[in-house]
């Protein structure tokens, strides 16, 4: 089930270039990373679908509800943790979360009970009676997460939730987010440009850049064989490359392994094998070209490499 669907979403700020250009995509349930470099349009996209930026073109729906028509119902079922350092002046942690719970429609006493629960859950149990403005950066991140959970939403938007947190805090918050999704069935859309964090928790990622949609894929695809192999040979490279070309096997230089290969007198490539071909075809070409294959291994990319490849390929196009 897709929790967010966008059709031709376009948003401009004044006379500046559009922050979002004709974005058409669907975001699946589970934990989804909304990835992109700074200025990609991630926060703008979240604010549009939450109705915080009402003037945009195109269609958008959240949990099957129209963003323009069902804004209040969406906000009842959705939580939002903003990127910016947000707090309510002159309030303690417990007061602020209780207050925001009431604003979501909870009766005062139930809001107070929920405020206690979520503040303890995010690890602020010892600081609930302190003024929020006295919280450290990491505590404020936890506080914002608590405000987004107080009304028990079905879907939570997290905008850069780990920024400013120390390593221990990051791991704790990652565990919390993982637990929300796995144990309590919450859908989480997580905007970030810190890819290793997303990789630890997300089921899928959506890539945005310069306001445009650049692709969506499941993280489990990263570890599967995508038809790319890392290849190192000794011998006459040109003839071997020509033989592979005849077999419809594409080659690009392996930038990561080039230096090490050259020092050993080898040539390194990344080869893309078309469907129906395999390592045996590479070995046959090597035998015919009289070169020795020193390395032939599938390429396993991490999220950062895939991310860079997607953006790099699109840019070259």
């Amino acid at each position, binding site marked *: 089930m897709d929790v967010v669907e966008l059709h031709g979403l376009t948003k401009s*700020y004044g006379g500046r270039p559009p922050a979002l250009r004709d974005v058409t995509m669907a975001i699946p349930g589970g934990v989804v990373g909304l990835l992109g470099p700074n200025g990609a349009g991630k*926060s*703008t996209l979240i*604010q549009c679908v*939450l*109705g*915080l*930026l*009402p*003037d945009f073109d195109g269609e958008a729906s959240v949990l099957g509800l129209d963003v323009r028509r069902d*804004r*209040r*119902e969406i*906000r*009842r079922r*959705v*939580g*939002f943790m*903003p990127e*910016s*350092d*947000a*707090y*309510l*002046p*002159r*309030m303690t942690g417990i007061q602020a979360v209780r*207050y*925001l719970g*009431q*604003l*979501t*429609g*909870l*009766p*005062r006493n*139930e*809001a107070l009970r*929920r405020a*206690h*629960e*979520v*503040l*303890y*859950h995010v690890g602020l*149990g010892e600081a609930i009676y302190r003024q929020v*403005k006295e919280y450290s950066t990491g505590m404020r991140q936890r506080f914002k997460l608590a*405000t987004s*959970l107080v*009304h*028990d939403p079905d879907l939570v938007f997290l905008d850069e939730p780990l920024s400013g947190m120390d390593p221990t805090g990051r791991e704790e918050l990652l565990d*919390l987010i993982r*637990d*929300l999704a796995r*144990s*309590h069935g919450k859908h989480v859309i997580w905007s970030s440009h810190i890819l290793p964090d997303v990789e630890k928790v997300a089921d899928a990622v959506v890539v945005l850049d310069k306001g445009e949609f650049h692709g969506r894929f499941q993280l489990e695809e990263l570890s599967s064989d995508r038809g790319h192999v890392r290849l190192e040979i000794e011998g006459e490279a040109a003839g071997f490359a020509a033989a592979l070309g005849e077999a419809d096997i594409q080659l690009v230089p392996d930038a990561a392994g080039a230096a090490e290969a050259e020092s050993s007198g080898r040539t390194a490539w990344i080869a893309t094998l078309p469907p129906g071909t395999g390592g045996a075809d590479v070995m046959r070409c090597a035998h015919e070209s009289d070169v020795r294959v020193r390395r032939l291994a599938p390429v396993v990319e991490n999220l950062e490499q895939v991310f860079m490849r997607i953006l790099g390929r699109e840019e070259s196009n």
Partner: protein
Amino acid sequence: MAVYARGYRPYRGQGRGAPAWYVIYREGYSLAFKNWGFRIIGLLFVVWFVIWAAGLYFTFGLQDQVDRATRGVGTQNMLSAASQLKQTLSIFYSGVAVLTGLLAILVGAGLISDDLRTRALPLYLVRPIRSWEYVLGKALILPRILVWTCLLPGLFYYLLVGLWQPPGETMSWLGGNLDIVESVVMHFLTAATSYTGLMLLLSARTDRRGAVIAVSAAIIFAGSLLSLIMARLEGLGQVMKYAGLPVNTVCAIARDAVTASVRTRRGDTHADRILSFIPEPDVALMIGVGLLALGLFSAIRRASTVEVSA
């Protein structure tokens, strides 16, 4: 292990809470009392109120008892009691006007600008509330405070003097002086609409509380001073009275010249020269309502998007 540390718990409640505007209003009103400046001014107000309550007692209550004890009959009459009360209200509200101006600035400056400064607006707007509900909740805070400073004291003094009338004349005295109640209510309405409108208008424009305080203080107090100076000029005052209506209305409130004192002190030549510079109560109220409409419009517009603070 703490009971709440066992993990996330789903919310099973079905109850519906209070309307969002009421929650915002109630929370904002209770937060106002956390401000030390507010507490100090509130204390000054209480002292001022008690002083004039005591003044009234010694003027009417005690004097009447002395007269009854020494002469066997009370000396008050309806005219003198009403006129003395109006005089007292006039002086009382002159002092209150300064305190009320300070309260309005202290409470009103942060109404919306605090939420802009702390970037709390997205925390509100992502809830199922409309922007008008947010603004309505904010807009009711100041009038609630002005009920204590502008409305209830005047009504209390009026009832007090009524109770000190000779036996059997209380109701007739109260009924015969309803114009005092009308003046007190008009004064409250004008102050509530003008101050709320002005503070909403300024507070929605910037996230800098200090700037809002400076500008509103300049409008309320420096404007009042300007009004006094200009009142000594002939001719120009009549024109300026309407040319600078919004400022003059606030000045009028700050000088307690809008209702009670205008109505009670007209006929005094010196007072008339000063008060001629200030709009009539009905006009002042209309201006107050206009200022409130402008403030509400500006605040609702600001609260309908996070575009600037995003």
